[in-house]
Structures are given as C-alpha cells and as structure tokens.
C-alpha cells in the first residue's frame, strides 16, 4: 500500500461525485471504479469512503437507495443529485485552477 500515492487531500469527494455522473453505484462499485479508472494507481480506503459518503448524503449531494445488484444481492446505491452535479462543477473548476497553478509554478521553476 505504501508504494501507491495517497489521494490528494480534499479530492475524494470530487472523485466520488464524478464516478456517480454516469450511473448510480454502490460503495464497493465506487471504490472499484476509482481504482479502475486510475489504472490501479488510486485506492480509496474503505475507512475514508464510508464516512465521505455519509458526508455527501448529509450535504444533499447524493441520494441513497437500496436496490438489487446483478447478482441479486441487496446493496445501497448512491445517485448524484442536482445539487451534487453543481457541487462537482465547482470542485472541478477549483481543482483545475489549482492544477494549472501548480503546473505554472513548476514550469517557471524549471526555466529559472
């Protein structure tokens, strides 16, 4: 585990919201999706995932409902709400600003 980079602080919420833009997912599905989309680089620790989901629920950015999986197991599926979509937009633009800024700093440092 130690060899893999940690998530940037504050990005977990954004990642969760993003994975939910396509379809509702359950907790395990979210973790799996993030792992897959990042080519196994990012691992969401379950210890952070569930508290984060509760936080998103509380903010009203996601909605949860119990549904059946393909394997006929009961699981809690999370759906992005309108407020969540808006929040994702805000977070993405903030993130891009940040990345852009970091990139500029690094480029300038190389030139100097």
């Amino acid at each position, binding site marked *: 585990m130690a060899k893999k980079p940690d998530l940037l602080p504050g990005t977990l919420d954004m990642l969760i919201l993003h994975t939910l833009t396509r379809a509702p997912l359950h907790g395990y599905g979210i973790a799996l999706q993030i792992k897959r989309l990042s080519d196994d680089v990012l691992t969401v620790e379950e210890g952070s995932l569930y*508290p984060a989901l509760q936080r998103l629920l*509380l903010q009203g950015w996601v909605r949860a409902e119990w549904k059946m999986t393909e394997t006929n197991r009961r699981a809690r599926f999370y759906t992005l709400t309108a407020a969540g979509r808006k929040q994702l937009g805000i977070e993405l633009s903030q993130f891009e600003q940040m990345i852009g800024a970091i990139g500029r700093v690094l480029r300038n440092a190389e030139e100097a």
Partner: protein
Amino acid sequence: MNAISRFIKRLAILFGRTRFRGELDEEMAFHREQAEREFVAGGMTPEAARYAAMRRFGNAVRVKERSHEVVGFKAETVAQDLRFAVRQLRRNPGFALTATLILALGIGASVAIFAFVDAALIKPLPYPDPARLVAVNESTELFPRNDLSYADYLDWKRVNTVFSSLDVYAANRFELNTPSGTEPVHGLRVSAGFLGTLGIHPMLGRDFREDEDAVGASPVVLLRYGVWQSRFGGRRDVVGQTVNLSGVAYTIVGVLPRDFEFAPRDIAEFWVPLQPTGGCETRRSCHNLDGVARLKGGVTVAAAMAEMKSIAAGLERKYPDSNRGNSASVIPLSDAIVGNIRPILLVLQGGAGLLLLIACVNVSSLMLVRAESRRREIAVRGALGASRVRLSRQFVTEAVTLVVAGSAMGLGLAYGGMKGLSGLMSKDWMDGMPFLRGLGLNPRVLIFAACLAVLAGILFSITPILHFRFSDMRDGLTEGGRGSAGTLWRRMGANLVVIELATALVLLAGAGLLGKSLYRLLHEDLGFRADHLATVNVHVPESVAPKPAQVLAFERALLERASAMPGVESAAAMDVLPVSCNCDTDWVRFVGRPYNGIHNEVNDRVVSVGLFRTLQVRLKSGRFFTEQDDANSPKVVLINEAFARKYFPGEDPIGKKMGDTDLTPASIRQIVGLVEDLKEAGLDQEQWPAEYEAFNQSPSSYYSLILRTSQNPGAVLPALAPMIHGVNPNLSVDWQRTMEDRIDDSEAANIHRSAAYLFGGFAVLALVLGVVGLYGVIAFSVGRRTREIGVRMALGAQRSSVYRLVLKEAGRLIAVGVVLGLAGSVGAAMLMRKLLFGVQAWDAWTLIGVAVVLAISALMASYFPARQAASVDPAEALRAE
C-alpha cells in the same frame, strides 16, 4: 437550505439510530463480500481471501465510528462518553461516592459561608444608591465612633457642604397600652428627613413633614410593616387613627414598606420624629444620637470626613467645655453595620476556601490513582483507535459527571449548613442582622457555586490528561507497567499530599487559636460569680412615677418582693448590667486638683445597696453603700480598681471628692469604697475605670433586677413578670434571662463561638481528608512496591526495616507538610489577628499542639500500609508476576 436540512437529516438519523447502524453494517458487509469474491477470482483460497478483505477494510469499528461522527451530533458522542462515565463510576462506587462526598463537603462549606458573605458584605444596603450613605458620628480618643449631641448635629447639618442631607436617630422604648396591660415596645426617634436620606418612602400614608421634629409639633408615628400586620390587622384605615404610646396619643401617618430594614435598630416598630425635648438633647455635652447622611455626588468619604473634622475642630474652639476632644467620624454606612462581623466572615471564607482546596487536591489524587489503575484500559482503547482527543474527552466527561454530582450534593449541604448556622446563632444576635434574613441560594450564590464547579471540573479533567500526556501510552499495554509512570505518579501524588497536610495544619492552627481565644474569652475573670443569677429589665414609665422618690419607692418594693421569692437568696438593682459595654459614661473632675478641661471618661453605674453582695464582688477598702446613704445625706460613690489605678496611683482614694467638669455643688460626691474590678465591658473589651452611684441618691427609671438564686436561676424567670406586675401592672418588663445566658448570647461570645466552632469543623474535616490522602499515597506506593519489598525480604531484610522503609517515606512527607504548614499557620493567624483574644498569632503551644496532632494522626494512617508491607510474603510477592 443547507444548515437547516442538514440539521433535520441529522435529527432523523439520531432518531433512527438503530436503522442507520444496521444499514451501515450491511453496506460494509456487502463491501467485504465483494472484495472477498474479487480475491477468490484472483486465485486465493476462500479463507485467505476473507482475511485479506478484512485486512483491507481495516478497523470496522473505527470506520463506523467515523461515519457516525460525520452524521452524528457532537452531543451524541458526549452522551456516549457520559454513559460510559456513569458506568465507570457505578462500577467503582467506592471511588465515586468518596470523591463526590469529599467534593460536596468542600463546595458545600464554601458556598454556605459565601451565602453569609454575600448577604452581609456583598449585597449592598437595601436602599437606593447605597454607596453614598455614610454613618456620621463624633469621635473621641476612647470612642472612635461616639454618639452625636443634638446641638452639634444642628451645627454640622447647617455648616457642612458635603452631604445632600444629614439626619439622626436615637433608640427609644414606649409603653404600649394593650387590652392585656402595658407592654414595652421598641421605637426609634428620627429627625424628620431620615427616611428621605435613606431613600425610602412609606408604602401607606406619608413620610414625616419637615417641621414635625420641632418641639411642640403634634405627635405622629410611622408603623413598621410587621407591627401594622400584627397589632393593627393590616387595615389600611389605620392612617389617621391614634395610638397611645407611653401615655401620649400619636397620630399614625403611615406604614413602612414590608421589606424595609434598618440594621442598626431593626427591632424598632414605632418610628416617631425626634423632638429635642429630653433633658439630654438640650445640652451640648450630652451625646445620644447617631447620624446617617447621604454624600453629595462626587464627594468621597474621605473628603466628607475631612470637612466634618474641621467643622468639629471649629466647634471645639467655640465650646471648649463641652466639645473638648470631640472630633468627627464619617464611614460608609455598610461598614458601620457589618464592620464587626466582616473579619469573622472573611476568616471563615478563607477557612472554607482552604477546606475546598484540600478537598480538590484529595479528589485529584483519587483521580490519579484511578487513572493509574485504568492505564491498561486507556492503552487498549487507544490501540483500538480511540483518538487522543476522544480519550481526553472521556476524562473530561468523567470529571464533569463527578463535579455535577458533587456540586448538586454540595448545594444541598450548603443549604442545610446555612439553615443550621442561622439556627445556631441566638435570636437576639440575629435580630441585629436583618440583612441575614435574605440568606439563601440566590443567583449570586449559585453563580459562585458554578464558578467553583467549573474550576474543580477543569482541575479534575486536567489531572488525568496531564498524567497520560507525560507518560507513554504504550507502556500501559506491557504487563509490568511499572516504569517511569509509577515514579511520576508517586512524585505528583506526594506533592499533592504535602499540600494537603500543610493546608490541614493551617486550618488546625487557626481552629486551635480561635478555640483558645474562645476559652480565654469565656473564662475571662468577670470579677463576680455569674452562676445562679437571674436578671430582668424593668422600666418605670414617667406616667407611673413622675418623681424620683416614687421611682425609688418602686425599686424598694420590687427588691423586697424579689428577695422574698422562693429560692431567691438576695436581690439587687443596677442600671446597666455587667458584661454589657463600656458605655453610659460620665466625665469626672477631682476636687482639689488642677484641671485642664480634659475629659476623664469613666463608666457610670447606678447600683442598689445590696448589689455587690448579690454579685459577690469583694470590697478592697472603705465600705459598701448602706441604707443611710439616701437623698438627705451627702452623695457618695464607690470606684473600681481600674479607677484607683488610673486616677489615684499610689494614693488612697477613700475620702477623695469629685464632681462634674464644672464641679457643680450638687454633683460633688465622696469616694467611700474601692471594689474589685467587675467586668462592665463586653467580654472582649478592656477594663475601664468605673464609678458606682447609690440608687437611693440618684434613682434611675430604667434598670435591671439581679436575683441570686439557690437553685437553677432559669426556674425563677417565669415568675418575674407576674411579681413585677403585682407591684404595678404598668411597669414594663422584658429580657428575662439568666446572667450566664446573657453572657453566652453577647455579641463577643457569639462571634468567637461561631468562629471557633466553624473553623474547628473545617479543621477536623481537613485533618481527616489530609490523613486519608496520605494513607492513599502510602498505600498505593506500598502496593506498587510489593515486588521490591518481596525481593528485599527474600534477600534478608527484616520486617522492622520494611516498616522503617515505609514510615520513612511517610515521615518525610509529614515533615515537609508540617514545616510548610507551620509557616502558613503563622501567616494565616496574622491575617485573623482581629478575631484572636488573649492569644498571639504565633502562640507556640497551639502551634506545637496542632503539629503533634497532625503528625501523630498522619503516622497512624501510614502505619497500616506499613504493616501490610511488612507482612508481605516474599515467596508470594515474587511469584505474583
């Protein structure tokens, strides 16, 4: 929307807690299953997959707790902590009960005393703008606050520029004619603007008019609320009616408010304007008034005092005869009212504070012991993922639980204590302190209690937290667990116990000194035998006996009847009873000696022929009065030894003559006898020169009868009023008491007794707590050193050397505590000098005595753990671990 909807969601989760947990559990189980499946698919055996999934998932409890923290209220975890705290305390009821009780004692004592301090010292006088009210008096060398004379009062009032108003009052008594006969009632004569100065308006009717205190104005009276209720049925139409007081018809003009109080003379029920008619108020040299003034805005007490002193100095130059040595005194009215009980209250508050300190230290060290024994529990909780904050909060919660329980119980104790203390004080004494009627758990007292509770809570929270901060938590998990923390605790606990012992010693020394003062006071040489004496106050109203000869006839008749009562050996009369005050003084001048106008102030008493025999006062030289010393024979006086010492040093006073400051022929009297010093002053006051005049030559219409009885003097008391009314039903009678009760109830005795008893109580509690604290420390240390002791004994140490080992540790603590305590005691005793009587702050015997008491009790407390240590079985101690 957010805040509100979040709140509602949280609320929903809070109420559906079980469901929330269930859903979270299910969700996480599902997650684990999926992971497991994935691992199996990756080629693991099912068993290995399950463990891998569990490992990856991490601490499930922690995850749940964190999820819960996200959605839960802060209060919810607090409630958890609280439940845990209560469970912890219930599991260990001995600790909980002891700690709560100790804390309750400490808080209760402090709060109870504070209630008195609040009632007497903090709560201002019950008048508007009380800080501007001052007591105004004359002052002489002997009396720092002397009564005002009426003529001086008029001049002061006219000339001063510092007071917006200056008024005077004088105590008075009336005979009230009731259907059941004449009853003495208390009155107050006040100048017309008096209530205005206090800022009080009658609740019914009107105040006195400006001119109603002039000679010849028609007599009017204001009623106190109590007497209006009890004697006039609270009828509103009493205003305008008349009431007969001492034979004069007074028109009732109003009723004073219900909660009105006037501490200097609160028993006064009938308030009348002060008309300067009495003989005293026509003479500038006669002092019978007290002044109350309201300062003008911006004038300080000191400035007022300075101006009044200069006015008094002017009058002294203008009237050298009457005003020689008369200066002025202006002090805050509150000082005048509570000045005498302030020292005792402050000392008691100090004592209660020290007791609280000991209690807190004691509870702190209990908490340390407990924290130490919970070291493993804490370590386990920490290892299972409890954060440091959460662990610390657990201690805080436990401390708060303890403090809340202790404070609640403490408030109960305080309430009981207050009632008990008020009950202990004699009624007469309480009557003089109407401000104590408001005693109770008022908001100020409750705030004080809350402050104490908060401080205690902080202390008890910090102690265990600090303890664990300084020690590595992981130590707790190792079995031995005896390393640095043990010594650290020992050091901290030991320091705490030294504080306890030192403080206990300070309290013990204070109690010892106050106790000794009380003993000295009550065993003060009175100069007469106070046992088997019954006394009663008699007033012969002017309406009954307008002439001195008639007053005298009543006295003779009363003494004759009194002596004939069964069980009475002899009876006598005296105008002011012994052990009252240095008061009712006279200025004397000696015939044949140069006189420079100085006021030779001496106590002046009028006594019947048999007084000294009845009191059993010895004659030093000359003779007692006889029946031949009467109105027709030359005036004679007796003097006491203090008089002879001061005015006739090395001379024989018998046969010398004296008179008033002008040596008026009618005042000249010859000294015929010298009697031993008889205590006229209050118990804690010094002996003054006194002269005794013969009742037969200068009859007084106010006096006390003194009866020496062969049996219990209390048995005679009920028969006194019927006996006196048998002589004339219009004589007023009150204050039937035995002499010993009077002395016991005197202010000096009351103050010293309450100080000594309360402080004694504090000291005993402090001693017990201190000694228990020491026991705890030693026992704990022995417990921790069992193995070491076992090793020592296995290596051949004798039991006696084990005893020595333990007792040496205790001895060191005790010695340090005693030395610190002795230093503190002398300091504390210096602070309470005012309450000491006949004993010095550094009274060696008291200090040595209390140090020995403390040391012996403390050594005894350490003996038990020492014995336990010495009876350690080496084999068992070594095998135990």
